[in-house]
């Protein structure tokens, strides 16, 4: 008989910490910041009991560096922060993409810019997640909107990080991070957990940055596979190079490993979209308000549907394109003056009308705010 899942009443941030343990996370380094601090609090208690380590670093820059170091040593690693801390992590985040180091970075978005409103929700770090660190680079960012998804998407973030050998960002927000609801905790083995694949070749043949494959195998420090790690463009052994050929191959491989795996990485939820004439595009806490808006609109005979991305980067272009040619309009809902709406407009390519609902006064967007705009 299948083991019954344990039902727990959890805060969104707690669920990230539990999801990290489920995924096999053994290392957390961070610097506390509202509204993400509970993740650190839980893991400070739980990691040492589960064979892991927790370090509170002196700031977010060093925390990101520690997470990269721990991952290079073979441990699945996590850091959690909010906008101001995310700004500090960006430099080393770029290093993570360049050196191809798997790790997970949680940003529980609050109001910004700068220290903004620590206890107010925000969804305006979407572009920062994508383009915050300099240079062309890949990006995977996930957007949970329930406490259960905080758990399951954290597990998925670790999986994608290992599979594609890169940092993966989870973009939560103050409402989802701080709210509590009951979830059924998956038993061991119910959700896929991807383990890092060590090299199968002898050490003298190992190429940590083999350009002939999309994702080279990754050796952990201490396994006997000596290689160099740098943020400079490097050859297939990790040593800095000025060879235009090698630089180009590497740059393009970094982008392609995400681009060519769109179907594996991009997850969206379609709620009442089949016959919809009006699509609402919303993620995180705004998706919860939008789901109520869809139900209320349907009750009034208006054919609305919700397209909820669980992956915001890469942007779900294909799904938006599909609906854009079928529906009258797409209403984008976000706690931002306008970030994801630009992407939706781009992806829709002028095939349908794009409407926008936003709020940036630290209050959440209510279902009625959305319904009004859809009905216009």
């Amino acid at each position, binding site marked *: 008989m299948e083991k019954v899942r344990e*039902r*727990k*009443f959890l805060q969104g941030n707690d669920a990230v910490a539990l999801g990290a343990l489920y995924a096999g996370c053994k290392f957390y380094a961070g610097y506390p910041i*509202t509204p993400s601090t509970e993740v650190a609090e839980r893991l400070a208690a739980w990691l040492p009991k589960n064979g892991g380590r927790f370090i509170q670093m002196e700031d977010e820059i060093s925390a990101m560096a520690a997470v990269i170091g721990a991952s290079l040593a073979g441990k699945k690693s996590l850091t959690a922060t909010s906008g101001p801390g995310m700004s500090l992590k960006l430099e080393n985040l770029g290093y993570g993409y360049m050196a191809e180091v798997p790790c997970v970075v949680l940003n529980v978005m609050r109001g910004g810019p700068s220290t903004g*409103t*620590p*206890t107010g929700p925000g969804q305006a770090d979407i572009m920062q997640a994508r383009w915050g660190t300099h240079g062309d680079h890949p990006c995977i960012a996930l957007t949970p909107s329930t406490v259960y998804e905080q758990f399951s998407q954290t597990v998925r973030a670790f999986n994608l990080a290992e599979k594609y050998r890169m940092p993966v960002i989870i973009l939560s927000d103050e*409402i989802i991070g*701080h*709210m*509590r*609801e*009951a979830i059924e905790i998956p038993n061991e083995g119910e959700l896929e957990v991807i383990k890092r694949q060590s090299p199968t070749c002898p050490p003298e043949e190992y190429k940590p940055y083999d350009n002939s494959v999309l994702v080279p195998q990754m050796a952990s420090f201490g396994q006997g596979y000596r290689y160099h790690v740098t943020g400079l463009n490097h050859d297939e052994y990790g040593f800095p190079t000025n060879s235009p050929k090698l630089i180009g191959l590497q740059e393009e491989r970094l982008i392609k490993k995400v681009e060519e795996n769109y179907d594996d990485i991009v997850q969206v939820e379609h709620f009442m979209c089949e016959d919809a004439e009006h699509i609402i595009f919303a993620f995180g*806490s705004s998706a*919860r*308000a939008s*789901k*109520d808006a869809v*139900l209320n609109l349907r009750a009034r005979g208006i054919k609305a549907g919700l397209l909820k991305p669980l992956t915001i980067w890469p942007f779900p272009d294909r799904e938006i394109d599909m609906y854009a040619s079928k529906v009258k309009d797409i209403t984008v809902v976000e706690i931002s003056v306008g970030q994801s709406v630009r992407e939706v407009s781009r992806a829709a390519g002028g095939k349908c009308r794009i409407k926008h609902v936003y709020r940036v006064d630290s209050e*959440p967007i*209510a*279902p*009625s705010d959305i319904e009004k705009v859809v009905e216009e």
Partner: protein
Amino acid sequence: MRYDIRFSGSGGQGIITAGIILAQAAAIKAGKNAVQSQSYGPEARGGASKAEVIISDDEINYPKIVSPDIVISLTQEAYDKYAVDLKDNAVIIVDNTLVHEYKQDGHTIYKVPITSSVKELLGSAVSANIATLGVLNEICKILEHDWLLEVIVGNFPERAAESNTKAYNLGVELAKKAMG
């Protein structure tokens, strides 16, 4: 069945904890859908804060309350700020230790001296939030008293169990008096 319950008070009075206990008991003991959320300022103490609990047989999407059917206010500032957008015939519970100005019209209002009574019985007002749960649950009959008490005892260190149980039961008695 759906309850939209808003606790309001000053930062440090434990109203978020009260909200968590109620929602947890509803979700785990009663098997209902329950969502708890909160709104508070950057300060650790003081400032009007609210905790919201939605309990429902149906799925709860939007986690915030649009119009509450029950509001509890422990301070005047919290009453002024958060006893708003009420449903018709809502229930308002004010702690008249600190709330003195309130409107009587259109709703059922209960004036309960929660903080002062807890202080008198236990020598400290620290368990006023737990007494508030007793008041609320006796007036509104949301869950079995035992379910709430089990969560209250389970969520705190053992040494707090006795005083919290006393505070809860005091709340129940105060509610009975307030209801007449």
